[in-house]
């Protein structure tokens, strides 16, 4: 079709010119080829990368959170375990201490009882010995006293009391214990 500027021969604008269809189609086909080969794959690759970056980041964050939670739980469990263990050890120690104390006390009491027993036995032995000794001495003294009383004339009271006084003063000089003397003496 010829495009003349003459107004009288103007072609209808709705009738396409063949060369324009061909050029339009070829130009668009080439554009399509470039977009299909270069632009679109690059954009899609970037979209994939971006989705990956965003979702990957979220996933990584979630994983880190989970790991941290797990670790925290682990630590808490461990702490609880340790606390329980410490309490158990303390209880054990206390019980053991009490036991030891009780044992020691029992031992000490036993020891004390033994010492007391020995002391008592010693005392008893000493007393026996003393009383045995005293008895011998008293019997001797009694005999002496009796001889002296019988030797003197026991006529008056003054003389008798004098005699007793003399005896007693002798006893005093001999032995500080007084209670032993009257036991063997006459009344």
């Amino acid at each position: 079709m010829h495009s003349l500027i003459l107004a009288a021969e103007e072609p209808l604008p709705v009738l396409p010119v063949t060369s324009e269809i061909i050029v339009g189609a070829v130009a668009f086909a080439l554009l399509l080829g470039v977009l299909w080969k270069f632009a679109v794959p690059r954009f899609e690759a970037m979209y994939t990368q971006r989705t990956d970056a965003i979702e990957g980041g979220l996933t990584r964050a979630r994983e880190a959170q989970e790991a941290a939670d797990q670790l925290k739980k682990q630590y808490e469990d461990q702490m609880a375990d340790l606390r329980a263990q410490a309490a158990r050890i303390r209880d054990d120690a206390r019980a053991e201490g009490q036991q030891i104390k009780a044992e020691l006390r029992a031992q000490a009491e036993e020891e004390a009882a033994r010492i007391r027993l020995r002391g008592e036995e010693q005392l008893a032995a000493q007393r026996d010995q003393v009383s045995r000794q005293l008895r011998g001495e008293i019997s001797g003294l009694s005999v002496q006293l009796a001889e002296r009383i019988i030797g003197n004339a026991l006529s008056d009271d003054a003389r008798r009391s004098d005699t007793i006084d003399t005896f007693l003063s002798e006893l005093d000089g001999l032995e500080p214990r007084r209670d032993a003397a009257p036991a063997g003496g006459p009344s």
Partner: protein
Amino acid sequence: MSAMVAEEILAAEEFVPPGVGSFIYPPIFGEVTKPIVMVVLSAVIIAGYFVVTSRRLAVVPGRSQFVAESFYGIARNTMARDQIGGTEFLRYVPLILGLFSFVLVNNLFGIIPLFQFPTMSRIGFPVALALFVYVFYHYAGFRKHGFVGYFKHALFPPGAPAFVYVIIAPIEFLQKFIVQPVALAIRVFAAMFAGHLILVLFAVAAEFLLLQGGLLAVAAPLSFIVAIAFTFLEALVMVIQAYIFALLAAVFIGAAVSEEH
């Protein structure tokens, strides 16, 4: 060129409104005219733009990547994914992106100084694009449903009583194999044609009024202002038409590959 033509006409001192002549350019050489050069140029510009911007795409976009990505996102998500859906929409992203950008740039040529001609007002170009869409969406249908299966899918929408198909099938055929692609081409052509005609009309009128002198010259700025106002309106129409063209292509493909009506 058209201005010069108009000037010559105006020499007769009779106002002749611009007509079809405004859309006809003399060949530069052979059959190559200004619109043909512009169409080729637009393809080069768009291809260059997307090749350059997609060279270093970062996960966190910079400013220029953000612009390219927004544009790509409209074609990919708003049109291809929402209309075609499934996983197969990715196959048609280059087509939708190409249609949207190609029609948009060629339309916008109409208000860009020096170009000042919407190439889509030459019907040959929309027809070429509509042919692409035609081939693609029927190919998509045949590929998805098989030869007989696609005809059954396209011409016999389920849910109608058997005798109604006598009426429905021819209508569906007419609709899908003739009317839709033809309307697709004519829609953008008519919008660009009318828009350009209006712009030229007011520009030529302003010039005529100014040259006439006297009281008429007072009206010239008014005509000029209207021309500028229409330029803004045209910018809007150009974007919308490009959007509609690409969106409808996606809708056709979506209908062709849909599982059921």
